[in-house]
């Protein structure tokens, strides 16, 4: 059984029938059109599979599989959106999915790194931050800061920190959170959160699909 997490910028796959198989990743723009999987999630997923699990459910199931605590907040920062699941006493307590006002944050972070030829691994977390609620609108702050004499790297770092703080507040400002998504590999982003962060990597939704696949449940209400 092949699982697929079809994200905006990257698609992740796992073949459950291949022993010791590791997840694979491919840029969405390079995804062959004829791709088919058995179980999919992600906003592009419905086009590539006959069975689809919505992203919040996949995130929650992934959290259940990977986090041993009963109380936690799991935040997923993707290219296009941010979403979180909060569990208390092992039960769902809150959730959120910001696909509009949180739009394109991850996408913009990656875009800026390439455009300005930066390496986030070598940028320190800045003291100051921008008030960022949207990746696209937040870019104006960068341009304004650069015009006023702030170095590009510092301006971008403030932007990234602003995005992290916005995501943190969206998740309810927890003292500790688990982080999911490709931004787990961005030390500037992870270090910008004003709380304890445990990165879980970019395959949390795949783990959620795996849990769904191994323990079939009645179909979702739809």
């Amino acid at each position, binding site marked *: 059984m092949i699982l697929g997490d079809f994200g905006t910028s990257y698609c992740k796959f796992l073949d459950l029938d291949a022993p010791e198989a590791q997840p694979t990743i491919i840029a969405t723009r390079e995804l062959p059109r004829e791709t088919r999987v058995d179980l999919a999630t992600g906003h592009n997923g419905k086009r590539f599979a006959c069975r689809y699990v*919505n*992203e*919040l*459910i996949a995130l*929650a199931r992934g959290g259940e599989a990977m986090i041993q605590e009963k109380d936690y907040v799991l935040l997923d920062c993707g290219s296009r959106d941010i979403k979180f699941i909060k569990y208390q006493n092992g039960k*769902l307590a809150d*959730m959120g999915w910001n696909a*509009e006002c949180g739009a394109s944050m991850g996408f913009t972070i990656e875009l800026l790194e390439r455009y300005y030829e930066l390496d986030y691994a070598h940028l320190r977390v800045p003291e100051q931050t921008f008030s960022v609620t949207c990746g696209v609108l937040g870019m104006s702050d960068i341009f304004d800061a650069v015009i006023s004499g702030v170095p590009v790297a510092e301006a971008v770092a403030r932007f990234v920190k602003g995005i992290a703080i916005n995501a943190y507040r969206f998740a309810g400002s927890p003292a500790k959170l688990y982080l999911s998504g490709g931004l787990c590999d961005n030390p500037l982003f992870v270090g910008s959160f004003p709380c304890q962060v445990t990165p879980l990597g970019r395959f949390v939704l795949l783990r959620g699909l795996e849990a769904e696949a191994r323990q079939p449940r009645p179909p979702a*209400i739809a």
Partner: protein
Amino acid sequence: MALDPASSAATLSRFRKIGIIGIPPLAVIRAANDHGLVIHDLDEPLVREDLETASPFLPKVYCAILRTAVVNALHLELDAIYIDTGPGKCDGALHTATILAETLPIPVICTRNTDTAGFGFPLCQARLPLIARMQAITAGVKSAAPYSNPPPSCVPTAGFWGVPPRDFSILELFPDTTHIHGWTRCMENKTPADHDLEAEFNPEAPTVFFAQSFCAKTALARYLAKKHPHALYLDVDVHTTSSARAKVQAFLELSGVRP
């Protein structure tokens, strides 16, 4: 034009076709029924016109229900509009009434519905598709007749709290055993200003607290959702977004609610 319920009802004999916004007092609806008037509920999408045609009169960032009402009022041939601006509606309706009164060549009559005689809310507690029940409840505002043959109530497995949404498609996701709370329950009970009834919820049933974006009731919805032990607060504007659908779907499934 603001009239008391008796005066509002008395003016009705001059009309054949009226529009209502919100829930005018029962005396008005009863008089309209007695005179055989056609009643259009302007809160619902009735004409195939772009919502943007309301933008010269109301801000784009405004309650989608009132923007819909303005679009209907602009495009339907009506003899008068009765708009409730009392405690069972909102300030938004009051300001909309002012704008419509200046814009339209027909009387725009403001009412204050303070009816307290409850008709009951059997549809809110019945085991039937949620969309069908919501349609029946909203259609019910055009009639003053008491309910006949009410369906039996069921044990709830989920709750929907709030106003009838502009886009009913969000209701498809709920099981038939969903109980309806909030202002919709007040609608069926024909007591739209009963704030105590509006604030009731069932803490035993996972409940979605719904409000239209930019509606004052978003504050109440979120406040009650925080008090409820197992709730999802949700606000939706004109159309149900895919993320709103996904949130409801995930909330119900992760709460163990089955169709």
